[in-house]
């Protein structure tokens, strides 16, 4: 009798958000560190979003001067750096930090203290970057910080570039720590039965991301160290007398894989979310894994497609053009497999599924414009124009940010034990979808008509209407993000109780309590496929319907 009664779970651990600050500062629990990563990411998102609104106000009509040109250049740089380095990458590291150990049935990351140090380097990195604003002006050369504009000869008045370089060195060290930790955890701490061929696709995505960051983090740090040598020790690597294009090679050898570091975990999340809500297993599991590694390999052979106008040999350009276009193949495979997963399915369009579908609808546009940009002749027209701004936001916002929202709506119940409000979630999705497309779809045409990116203002009256539509739509995005923040705060305090497995998930994180106890599992369920929880549900279903048969001798 006692065995069948469900006893209230003993409060062996504290599952409230408001923990003593000393605990937050010293914890090595991957879940709390994950939450801190994610909160840091969201705060950066809001801050960089505010920068974006100022940028849009400045561009809403010709000849405006909401901010002066120097301040404008600092704002666009801070917007890019904050979104890329301090929001998307950091948030995705956080969600992986939370989910990967649970999904593979581990108790914590392999190196909890490295995890702790890796996280705390992030606020150091952010503070270093923002120090620039208090020392005569932050970085003002765009997030890419092309030399020689960042050199002392053109930046004598401020330390912004130095702080940016130091910040990215710290950031790269933190990223390398996190990547090493993920790889070791996934290799060494898998539960019994969790073979590599049974890893959830999100975990596979995290393996590929970690490999990428491990390889390209060091070149980024190297580029930044050389920039500092130039500025502080008087070397001539990238100066007007040196080789400025060398900087671009080093930066983009990091910079292009970074794009995939920001989207592969998103691909992983979508690969988790779609099968759960379609009630079908993922179509072509091994192909999905293969496609991830195809992208990892190709992404390191395409960097110079950012440099088609610097005057390279055309055969070198052709190589980079072909490699870039080839990335469309594994990405296409993933796309078609996701669609095939839902075919003949029973698809429940919950909020996370809506975001997943919104991601597919918008990322497609980013992928196709990517093929245009890869074509060298066409790129010489589109490069550094608003077409590129539109393209990169379609892959980064329509791609990464939509997947992040999908992931938040999907895993919030696991992390907090409460559901996010569905009505607010629907509003969040539709306002974001409309605001996003209203902002970035017509940006393509501005680029085609000759509006360069990163100009502080413009005099051409033909661009006025389009820019005004973009600015109005961008405020719709801001409204949507506000709804999202309200939803997070409200639901965390008083949302509907989620229970252990509100979505009927496939993977191990749904087998434990919501939120999970510090040790994650009282007993790790048996793993016999890449959907261990589905197997358990099926077994229960079978036990209910099947008649117990007498054992034969």
């Amino acid at each position, binding site marked *: 009798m006692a065995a069948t009664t469900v006893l209230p779970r003993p409060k062996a651990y504290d599952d409230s958000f408001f923990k003593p600050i000393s605990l937050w500062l010293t914890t090595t629990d991957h879940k709390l560190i994950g939450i801190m990563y994610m909160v840091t990411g969201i705060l950066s998102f809001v801050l960089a979003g505010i920068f974006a609104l100022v940028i849009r106000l400045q561009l809403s009509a010709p000849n405006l001067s909401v901010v002066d040109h120097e301040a404008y250049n600092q704002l666009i740089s801070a917007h890019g750096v904050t979104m890329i380095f301090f929001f998307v990458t950091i948030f995705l590291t956080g969600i992986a930090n939370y989910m990967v150990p649970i999904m593979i049935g581990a108790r914590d990351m392999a190196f909890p203290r490295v995890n702790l140090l890796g996280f705390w380097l992030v606020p150091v990195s952010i503070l270093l970057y923002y120090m620039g604003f208090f020392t005569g002006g932050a970085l003002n050369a765009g997030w890419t910080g092309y030399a020689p504009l960042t050199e002392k000869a053109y930046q004598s008045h401020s330390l912004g570039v130095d702080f940016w370089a130091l910040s990215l060195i710290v950031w790269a060290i933190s990223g390398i720590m996190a990547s090493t930790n993920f790889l070791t955890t996934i290799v060494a701490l898998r539960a019994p039965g969790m073979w590599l061929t049974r890893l959830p696709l999100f975990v596979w995505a995290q393996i590929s991301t970690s490999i990428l960051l491990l390889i390209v983090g060091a070149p980024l740090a190297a580029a930044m160290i050389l920039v500092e040598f130039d500025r502080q020790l008087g070397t001539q690597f990238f100066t007007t007398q040196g080789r400025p*294009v060398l900087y671009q090679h080093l930066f983009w050898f990091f910079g292009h894989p970074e794009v995939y570091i920001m989207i592969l975990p998103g691909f992983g999340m979508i690969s988790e979310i779609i099968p759960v809500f379609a009630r079908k297993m993922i179509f072509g599991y091994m192909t999905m894994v293969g496609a991830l590694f195809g992208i990892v390999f190709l992404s390191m052979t395409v960097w110079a497609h950012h440099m088609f106008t610097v005057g390279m040999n055309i055969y070198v350009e052709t190589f980079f053009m072909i490699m870039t276009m080839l990335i469309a193949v594994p990405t296409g*495979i993933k796309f078609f497999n996701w669609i095939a997963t839902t075919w003949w399915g*029973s698809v429940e369009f919950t909020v996370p599924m809506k975001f997943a579908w919104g991601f597919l609808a918008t990322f497609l546009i980013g992928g196709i414009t990517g093929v245009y940009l890869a074509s060298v002749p066409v790129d010489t027209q589109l490069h550094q*124009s608003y077409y590129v701004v539109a393209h990169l936001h379609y892959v980064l916002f329509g791609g990464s940010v939509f997947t992040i929202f999908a992931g938040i709506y999907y895993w919030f119940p696991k992390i907090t034990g409460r559901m996010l409000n569905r009505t607010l979630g629907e509003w969040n999705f539709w306002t974001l979808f409309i605001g996003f497309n209203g902002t970035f779809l017509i940006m393509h045409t501005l680029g085609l008509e*000759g509006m360069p990116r990163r100009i502080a203002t413009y005099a051409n009256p033909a661009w*006025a209407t389009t820019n005004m539509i973009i600015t109005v739509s961008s405020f719709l995005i801001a409204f949507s993000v506000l709804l999202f923040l309200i939803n997070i705060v409200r639901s965390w305090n008083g949302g509907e109780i989620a229970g252990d497995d509100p979505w009927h998930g496939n993977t191990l994180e749904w087998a434990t309590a919501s939120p999970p106890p510090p040790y994650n599992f009282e007993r790790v369920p048996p793993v016999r496929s890449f959907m261990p929880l589905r197997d358990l549900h099926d077994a229960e279903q079978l036990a209910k319907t099947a008649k117990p048969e007498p054992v034969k001798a």
Partner: protein
Amino acid sequence: MALSLVTAAVLLSSCDLGGLSPIFPTPVSPNGQHIYDTYIGISIPAIIIFVAVEIALLWVVLRYRRSRQPVGYVPPQIHGHTGLEVVWTVIPLIVVLAIAYYSYLTLEKDFQPITGEQMLVTVSGHQFGWDYAYQGTEVVVHQEGTLAGDVTPFVVPVNTLVKLQFQGTDVIHSWWVPAISGKTDAVPGYDNYSWLKISQPGTWRGECAELCGAGHSNMQIIVQAIDQASYDQWMAKQVAGLHPTPSPKASPSPSPSASPR
């Protein structure tokens, strides 16, 4: 009256597009035309794939949503299908390789330093303006940037193959006039090349396309193409401006050709 007609045409063309053109401005130089054609060529498979995939996404929403399926419907569990996956690997592969080959043809045709040019102009970028040195003469057009864009035009004769040699003197700049062709970076340390051959008289605008400092948006470009006779007059005036004649009797030869010794 002709002028007012031209003005009206320019106004109309800028009005009906209204900042929402799905294509580049009509090219006036052959290399720009080839880029334009490549863009159109890529658009054909791109639009087909875009429409097909969006329809598939929409079909899933309309047909396979749970409310459209019978109660208690259990979807078939499909591991995958090797044949299908090969199909949607090979078809995109063929499409992108075809696009790459098509692009390569344009690249090979237009994007190598040309020989046999009729004129060579060295374009050097600086913060914040452009200098156009007409090689073979001492004429240099200084195009100092202003936001309003009322800069000194870079004058070229029509139907003349002009080779452009780009040089950077401080930071990296990028010379871009969308109606002529793509952009070319002016990088310190080495020369970079492009060319133009403008087919009709007119004035075309452009801007610096590489962030180069606080005055980046002021680095406006105007290219003015005029017929050969007007160009010769213009050039003579520029040369005369360089060498104010000391006395009416002396007429210094503007010809740069040195007499053989």
